[in-house]
């Protein structure tokens, strides 16, 4: 076992991690530990853009952006955080441009902007051009630009280091017991060795957990590692019931087709050729927020108006757009349709269906990206940013483009805060045998002598989540899911890992990831069962209305073996108030 010592350790090298690293690396001795080579991160798959009220092409201001974000999140957004994000969005875009990001340009040479779902002028009056973009590969450009700037600033990466534990110690300060960060433990995939990283500050930026679902736009590697590690160490997870299903995944595959397709004029049709969004959101139609569009699509299919041989998808119609316009603005996604479905979007509509896309919940933080261990207290030295975190700027439904914005704004904040903290704080002594928890975990998985296959359990988990915890939920489907997950957890105790080597044992890696997915699926389902209302991405058919009186609050799920009487035993569900500044909850209509 090797021990390393850094002021700041950043876990994850997607957009949030690298944005943090650029700041932290210039202020403090920083290491970035990442399961994947940085440029493999799923930030690179984001397409449509990053909103900021630059007002380059029409009147706009950050206050409208704040309002749209809050309304889009169905008023579960912490309004102070949304205000920070919308205000700092402008500099976040300009920072990227100065770092070299090749945005599309207006005829005047300024950063071009386009429409995106839920982004409006003057509090919902009409769609506004707010999304700054680089064709339909904005995430790719952000990931590349941030990596380029990490190279420029000599950021130290530990590639293919899989962090599996967060080390914290309880310290007595002025008679009170405080938890403080001591470091992390990582498994080096290339060698199979454990490494301990002692650090004054740790930033979690590990991304989302989309692989709990079967139909998903997420990468195979998005297994919620950071959330799982934190949760197992007693940190609560906030708002995990809110998962975003993106309306336009390629049918059957889940591969994302950007909302930019609709921003550029694409529309959704059912099997009858009807533009059905006119019925569900008469004002902004196909550009309604994602939760509304996804539910509308699922409802069309459920009521028998789906297209295709099994009537199980709807159609994204771009055929009325000029091919040159499609090529200039949507080159990648139209290529996906050609490559994977053999459909030519110039003259055929593309089969689409909602796909699991984004976890609105995660590790709770305040607006300085400090991780909360309770509603009132933070863990000094611990930060989180990006999809792994819940600030909460997305509330119960994230607006398109706001995730690329989130990683830049809060990644930067986390990097600065972590570095500044490390300049005043002392190292915390490592606990004795710091690697013991991780070694035990790996030995248990590796040494398991059962016959169950990781792939089979994961498939069944994803299937029950798709069937029971997707766009439409009821108490019955959620209870069914909990039962299924518990049975799978029991089978997980009897898995076999066939690869017996140490070098690049990705069989072992997948087994460990599955353990985390099972934990997170259970938390998501428990929180969904607890929230007896419908709001944003969480829709309970047995409680179809929003219930502000009882549920205008964040959920906080704690791992608690003593919670044997809970609806889902072992998970204690508490609440946290929503931060309000100036916007009173209103009915959400588009």
């Amino acid at each position, binding site marked *: 076992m090797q021990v390393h010592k850094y002021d700041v350790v950043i876990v994850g090298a997607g957009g949030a991690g690298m944005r943090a690293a650029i700041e932290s690396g210039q202020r403090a001795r920083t290491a970035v530990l990442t399961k*994947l*080579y940085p*440029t*493999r*991160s799923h930030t*690179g*798959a984001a397409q449509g853009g990053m909103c900021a009220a630059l007002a380059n*092409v029409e009147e706009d201001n950050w206050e409208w952006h704040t309002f749209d974000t809050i309304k889009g999140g169905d008023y579960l957004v912490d309004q102070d955080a949304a205000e920070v994000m919308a205000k700092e969005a402008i500099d976040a*875009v300009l920072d990227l*441009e*100065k770092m*070299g990001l090749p945005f*599309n*340009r*207006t*005829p*005047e*040479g*300024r950063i071009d902007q386009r429409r995106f779902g839920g982004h409006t002028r003057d509090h919902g009056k009409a769609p506004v051009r707010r999304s700054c973009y680089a064709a339909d*590969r904005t995430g*790719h450009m952000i990931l590349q630009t941030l990596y380029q700037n990490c*190279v*420029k600033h000599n950021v130290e990466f530990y590639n293919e280091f899989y962090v599996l534990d967060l080390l914290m110690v309880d310290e007595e300060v002025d008679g009170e017991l405080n938890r403080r960060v001591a470091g992390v433990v990582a498994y080096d995939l*290339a060698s199979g060795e454990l490494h301990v990283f002692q650090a004054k500050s740790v930033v979690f930026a590990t991304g989302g957990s989309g692989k709990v679902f079967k139909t998903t736009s997420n990468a195979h*590697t998005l297994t919620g590692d950071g959330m799982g590690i934190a949760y197992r160490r007693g940190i609560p997870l906030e708002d995990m019931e809110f998962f975003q299903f993106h309306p336009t995944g390629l049918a059957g*595959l889940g591969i994302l087709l950007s909302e930019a397709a609709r921003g550029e*004029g694409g529309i959704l049709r059912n*099997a*009858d*050729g*009807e*533009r059905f969004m*006119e019925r569900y959101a008469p004002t902004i139609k196909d550009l309604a927020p994602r939760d509304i569009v996804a539910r509308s699509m699922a409802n069309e299919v459920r009521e028998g108006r789906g*297209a*295709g*041989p099994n009537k199980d998808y709807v*159609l994204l*119609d771009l055929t009325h757009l000029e091919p*040159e*316009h499609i090529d*200039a603005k949507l080159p990648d996604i139209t290529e*996906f349709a050609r*490559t*994977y479905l*053999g459909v030519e979007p110039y003259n*055929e*509509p593309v089969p689409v269906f909602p796909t699991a896309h984004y976890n609105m919940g995660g590790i709770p933080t305040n607006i300085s990206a400090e991780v909360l261990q309770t509603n009132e207290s933070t863990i000094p030295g611990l930060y989180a940013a990006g999809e792994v975190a819940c600030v909460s700027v997305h509330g119960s439904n994230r607006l398109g483009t706001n995730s690329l914005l989130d990683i830049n704004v809060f990644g930067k904040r986390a990097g600065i805060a972590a570095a500044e903290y490390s300049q005043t704080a002392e190292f915390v002594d490592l606990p004795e045998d710091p690697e013991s928890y991780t070694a035990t975990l790996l030995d248990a998985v590796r040494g398991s002598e059962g016959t169950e*296959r*990781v*792939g*089979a359990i994961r498939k069944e988990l994803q299937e029950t989540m798709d069937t029971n915890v997707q766009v439409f939920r009821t108490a019955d489907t959620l209870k069914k899911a909990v039962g299924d997950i518990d049975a799978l957890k029991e089978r997980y105790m009897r898995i*076999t*890992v*066939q*690869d017996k*080597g*140490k*070098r*690049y044992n990705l*069989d072992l890696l997948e087994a460990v990831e599955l353990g985390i997915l099972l934990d997170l699926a259970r938390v998501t389902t428990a929180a969904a069962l607890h929230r007896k209302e419908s709001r944003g991405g969480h829709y309970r058919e047995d409680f179809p209305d929003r219930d502000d009186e009882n549920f205008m609050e964040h959920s906080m799920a704690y791992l608690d073996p003593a919670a044997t009487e809970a609806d889902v035993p072992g998970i204690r569900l508490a609440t946290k108030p929503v931060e309000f500044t100036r916007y009173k909850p209103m009915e959400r209509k588009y």
Partner: protein
Amino acid sequence: MPTETKDESAEPASKVELPDSVAGSGEIPSFDITLRVRRYLPEFYDEAYWDDFQVTMYGTDRVLDALHKVKWEMDGSVSFRRSCAHGVCGSDAMRINGHNRLACKVLLKDLNTSKPITVEPIKGLPVEKDLIVDMEPFFQSYREIMPFLMNESAPPSKERLQSAEERERFDDTTKCILCAACTSSCPVFWTDGQYFGPAAIVNAHRFIFDSRDDAGDMRLEVLNDKEGVWRCRTTFNCTDACPRGIQVTKAISEVKQAILSRKV
């Protein structure tokens, strides 16, 4: 570039007649394949060897789906990198039937499934295990061309201006995902690992032709080295291999031209 007027002009129809073909055909075809995987497990065997797996696959399944099926259902030790599974992260470049491709972008039905489909690691980089190679030499070359915007002038308060035409000039090379399919398809790179390789040159091109960048001459100097662009023999393997459709050989030629015209 088309202007923004288009999407205001034609509000799409509320209802249209859809052709029957949109309904698609009813059956998803299945087919049996032999996946022949180049194995290298240095902890257990000194030599690399071929391993055949028979799997039944469906419809639009890709080579990556077949590899997953093998790993998840037959032999968990088969090792390869992958992440996004739709051609944007660059993890799963490999040699498929002798051609460098991303496993997630090659549909099995587009290959001859009556013969074994061979899958090997990309060439020219040290093999670590099965299809996994050491990417460090590749990223080393990338870092050497200074792949970041350099501009010494005081930044404006807002964005730097750039015309749509100036932006278009380097659009093609911004698409690179650093998968190494091009570099590891290059015969020069196979015999001379010191050669920068196509991917590094593509990324240099991306900055050399960016109107906002001031360091083009520095990069041209780096690539004028004996291991630089002049090693390119214009075999076009790289252009064929690029999963993003980048005109790699053309980009290399443009860099050669730039060296000649600016510096001679």
